[in-house]
């Protein structure tokens, strides 16, 4: 996809939204606009700053709508951190209808623990869905879990793609951390990408579904509608 469709220059952002430089940088200071959204690129005049278009426009609109209702500090807490910091106990895992009890048990055995990060929960949900969709057979799934679970335990970045790869009838998991919109993955033709999922998108779906159960914090639309 063309960069101009996915990104918006700072100049165009201010023009489109009517906000001032002062507001933009105040919101950055308050954590309302994540620092990683400010992407600098070379330009004829030196450097120009670009933002992920859809995300920044949604965020600015949310701030403009909500800033009379909440203080900037409250808004910063309400509007999504990129990942929830809580951990989930064995009992709480049972609340996720998507998670097969044996998958959860295998994660506990492999990682030798009974509390899990939200990313680990998302990975469990993904594996269970792939099994349900017959993308991977039951035994192949349980062979995959030890290695995937170990890797998932080290992931802290929600902007991750989780891929299921097939190589010579064996299955492997691949985690792409912080993939760039301009990037692409080229694999040896012996490797087949069976399926893939964005953990960030799954995160949003699951948080919405279980918002009452776990009191998750949310992104712009849900806060505006609350």
């Amino acid at each position, binding site marked *: 996809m063309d960069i101009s469709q996915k990104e918006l220059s*700072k100049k165009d952002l201010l023009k489109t939204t009517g906000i*001032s*430089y*002062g507001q933009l*940088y105040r919101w950055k200071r308050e954590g309302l606009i994540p620092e990683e959204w400010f992407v600098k690129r070379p330009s004829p005049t*030196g450097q120009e700053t670009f933002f992920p278009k859809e995300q920044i426009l949604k965020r600015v609109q949310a701030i403009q709508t909500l800033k009379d209702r909440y203080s900037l500090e409250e808004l910063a807490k309400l509007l999504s951190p990129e990942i929830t910091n809580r951990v989930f106990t064995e009992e709480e895992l049972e609340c996720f209808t998507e998670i097969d009890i044996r998958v959860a048990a295998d994660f506990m055995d492999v990682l030798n623990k009974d509390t899990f990060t939200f990313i680990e929960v998302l990975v469990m949900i993904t594996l269970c869905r792939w099994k349900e969709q017959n993308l991977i057979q039951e035994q192949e799934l349980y062979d995959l879990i030890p290695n995937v679970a170990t890797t998932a335990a080290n992931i802290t970045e929600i902007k991750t793609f989780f891929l299921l790869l097939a190589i010579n009838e064996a299955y492997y998991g691949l985690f792409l951390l912080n993939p760039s919109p301009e990037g692409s993955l080229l694999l040896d033709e012996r490797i087949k990408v069976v399926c893939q999922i964005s953990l960030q998108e799954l995160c949003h779906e699951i948080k919405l579904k279980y918002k009452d159960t776990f009191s998750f914090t949310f992104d712009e639309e849900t806060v505006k509608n609350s």
Partner: protein
Amino acid sequence: MKTDTKISGSGKIGQGEYNLIKISGSGAIEGPVTFETFKVSGSCKVCPNAALEGNEMHISGSIHSQSEIKVNTLHVSGSLHSENDMKVRSLKASGSCHLQGKIYADEIYVSGSLKSSEEVNADIVEIRGMATLNDLFGEQITFIPENCNSFNFFRFAKHRKLSNVKNIECTTLEAGCLQCDTISAKNILLTDGCVVNHIQCDGTLSYDSTCQIGTVEGNCAQKLLS
């Protein structure tokens, strides 16, 4: 219960929650501390992993910090050297400030010199003296030249000492004796020999005949001051 801790002469302060920290002489902060009031009369060294968080800091002398500083008000009369990020509501400094991390503030008033290699981001910035900065962002930014004109005896020529900033983005800028690569602002007033390579302005751009301006972009009303 929070305690007061005082150093007269030389000493060290470890991690803890304090009401008052007072250093007369030479002190070192060796662990993370929180405080209501922090007073230094002399010199203070803040070690790595010894973040400071509190309400008021008053430095009469010098402070060299290798850790984050997060305070409501910071008054410096002397020298402030920070190797890490700072978040303050109000910074008032007379003397020299050397910042190697970001500084986020509501207001920054510096009389003397300000040097920063990272982002300076505040609603109000007023610099009375000289500054060497990289990125300067805010709502209202003012450079008040002081003693920027000197006479070079051998060349029988006036010599201007200019503040040097790579990039300024703000709503309103008033500056004298400033050299800048790029200014992006709504309203700009330049005097006293400012030299600017590129201006992006969508309001009013006023400057006097001593200023040298490269390219101007944007829908602005330009005015040459007499």
